[in-house]
């Protein structure tokens, strides 16, 4: 049979099946199970209405239970067992987790995931917010928005292929087809442009990142440090944790700045970008930022339009300049939406797999948890450790997911 015909039949049968299920089960409920006639008509109608929601929810409940809930428990179970030679499983307690924590590749994946977790949601949300604000008042703003949104329609693997070409390397002397190398080779040693773009701008960017982290941490920690008003132990603990992370990031940034300042760059040589340890992580992150910026922009653009015009006019009369209006009037009013966007992207990031799989497959120190899990589960055929890795991902995602749903519901109210 022709595949197109097959597809068509599948669609017809699938959709028809759904309609038939709802129609006939509803009919059965009303006519056979609890008919709305006879002595019990009133009671039957009430009962039918009580059963009906469950009837309609049934397909979703069954599918979710079978494909979501059951696998979770099966994975927990698998992560606590080990295969025995000759078939069968045996219970080994937390041995898989111990084994996994002894592997440097796991820690590499976890660290990289943390980097992804910080950079991608922050960059996507920031770029999305910037694009939303800048494209708001101009005539071709909608065209710009469509262009920025377009990567959303590309699959992660497709995006990875596109960006692999961006990072492509040809031997010196040949024409470079990768944009990155083409740009790189146009820089000469000692020229003003090289200094500007390869030393000054990166240093400023890293310094800006460090300052932003410091400011954000200070804003979070201020109520705890100054002790005005009631401060719960929870908040103190969270502040200490965030503070420690911030100090580490700032420490890293300072070393990064020193590194950039002192590095002697190999001008004139084409670079294999994806094999540069540490930096290649950022080249991979760029792909996801490129995709997620569109999502952030669309949501934030709608939120920005929801900011009451008269609060902005009041701020104008109060003498605020456009930056103050943006940061002190608009952004605080859409903070709820920003948090929802941020956490939504965070969840995508924690699950990131395809991009790494397609571009480096975790080589050259780019491993991430999801790809590590895939490696263990399907390549090494080590179901125990693979499932343990899956559990780690789930443990990381769950609190963010709960928070995300909580915030999204708060926004809707």
């Amino acid at each position: 049979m022709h595949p197109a015909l097959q597809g068509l039949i599948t669609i017809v049968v699938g959709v028809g099946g759904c309609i038939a299920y709802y129609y006939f089960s509803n009919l059965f409920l009303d006519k056979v199970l609890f008919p709305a006639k006879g002595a019990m008509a009133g009671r039957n109608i009430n009962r039918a209405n009580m059963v009906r929601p469950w009837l309609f929810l049934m397909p979703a409940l069954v599918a979710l239970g079978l494909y979501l809930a059951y696998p979770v428990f099966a994975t927990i179970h698998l992560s606590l067992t080990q295969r025995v030679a000759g078939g069968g499983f045996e219970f080994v307690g937390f041995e898989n987790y111990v084994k996994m924590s002894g592997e440097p590749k796991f820690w590499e994946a976890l660290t990289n995931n943390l980097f992804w977790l910080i950079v991608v949601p922050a960059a996507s949300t920031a770029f999305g917010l910037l694009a939303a604000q800048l494209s708001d008042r101009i005539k071709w703003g909608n065209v710009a928005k469509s262009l920025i949104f377009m990567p959303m329609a590309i699959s992660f693997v497709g995006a990875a292929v596109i960006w692999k070409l961006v990072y492509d390397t040809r031997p010196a002397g040949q024409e470079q087809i990768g944009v990155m190398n083409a740009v790189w080779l146009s820089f000469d040693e000692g020229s003003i442009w090289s200094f500007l773009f390869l030393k000054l701008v990166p240093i400023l960017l890293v310094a800006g990142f460090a300052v932003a982290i410091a400011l954000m941490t200070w804003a979070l920690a201020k109520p705890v440090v100054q002790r005005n008003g009631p401060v719960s132990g929870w908040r103190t603990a969270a502040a200490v944790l965030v503070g420690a992370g911030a100090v580490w990031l700032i420490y890293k940034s300072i070393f990064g700045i020193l590194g950039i300042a002192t590095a002697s760059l190999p001008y004139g040589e084409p670079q294999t970008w994806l094999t540069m340890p540490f930096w290649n992580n950022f080249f991979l992150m760029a792909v996801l930022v490129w995709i997620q910026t569109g999502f952030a922009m669309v949501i934030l653009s709608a939120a920005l339009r929801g900011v009451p015009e008269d609060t902005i006019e009041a701020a104008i009369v109060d003498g605020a300049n456009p930056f103050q209006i943006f940061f002190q009037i608009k952004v605080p009013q859409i903070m709820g939406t920003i948090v929802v966007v941020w956490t939504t992207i965070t969840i995508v990031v924690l699950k990131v797999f395809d991009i790494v799989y397609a571009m480096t497959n975790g080589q050259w120190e780019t491993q991430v948890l999801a790809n590590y899990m895939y490696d263990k589960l399907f390549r090494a055929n080590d179901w125990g450790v693979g499932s343990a890795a899956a559990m780690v991902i789930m443990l990381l995602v769950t609190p963010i997911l709960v928070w995300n749903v909580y915030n999204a519901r708060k926004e809707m109210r």
Partner: protein
Amino acid sequence: MAELVLKNVEKAYGEVKVLKDINLEIQTGELIVFVGPSGCGKSTLLRMIAGLERITGGDFSIDGVRMNDVPPAQRGIAMVFQSYALYPHMTVRDNMSFALKIAKKSPAEISAAVDKAARILQLTPYLDRLPKALSGGQRQRVAIGRSIVRDPKVYLFDEPLSNLDAALRVATRIEIAQLKEAMPNSTMVYVTHDQVEAMTLASRIVVLAGGGISQVGTPLELYERPENEFVAQFIGSPSMNLLPGEVIETGETTVVRLENGGLARTHVPTQSADKGLKVKIGVRPEDFTETDGDAIHAGTVEITEALGEVTLLYFQKTADGAQIVAKLPGIRPELRRTEVKLTADSNKVHLFANGRSLLYR
């Protein structure tokens, strides 16, 4: 301290001119009220004064300085919006401090100004609350407080009471009047569609209609000597009755033969050339008195509304579809379905030709 001058000011949205030929001088310390029906451009004119709307023609100056292209913050104005426009994410204190923080005032100065304004407006207990935890009246006071702390030359109000319930509206109206009393040197421009607010608050009223100024004057001038039929009917409630007729006697006292057969005398003077002129006389419902002699209007009362101190009489519609209303003192429900003959003091009868009052020519 501010004198506002508008000279031939106009506003066009593309091809459509919503305001034209606006000429107005506002003296320091006045409370000017812009009043007019919905959509007549009151808000637009106020927003042009505020600098939120571009002035597309003419000149606008404050204290002799041309303001057309000066940004709002540098005009020395403060504005209270119809919807309050409080910053929802800031406490009352932060809402009131925002402008001063932007202006880089010292914290001591800011908190002194905010505390003082809060005391005047009785907002002190609420300073640390968010706007959503305040009642409508309290929000309105925060919005006013936000203006006061800036100590502007000119206060602009855009229908500040229209979102409040009736009782609160009266209370807040009185508070605004007291506020004005306490700041005799500040100029206020106040927009409303409610003529009672206009009459009670204004030192002068500007009636806007059809994209222009219909009349400017003190509340009593507008009430006693309306320049045209629009102002005559807009000011006063229920509105003035207009009855068509023809001038039959001219001089110090003009006599008009009405189309309904009635006869009216008015002290609006006319010249002998006016004899035979088609006119409309105007009589306010409260100026009608019962009579046995020559009547301005005679007819059957269809509905009575006894309000206690007065009774409103609604007559059967006249041949041209006009609804005549009279307001008689006391409680008179027994007049329903009876024949009543009405006349009015000749000092209280207005005279219009082609829509304009014959007092002004």
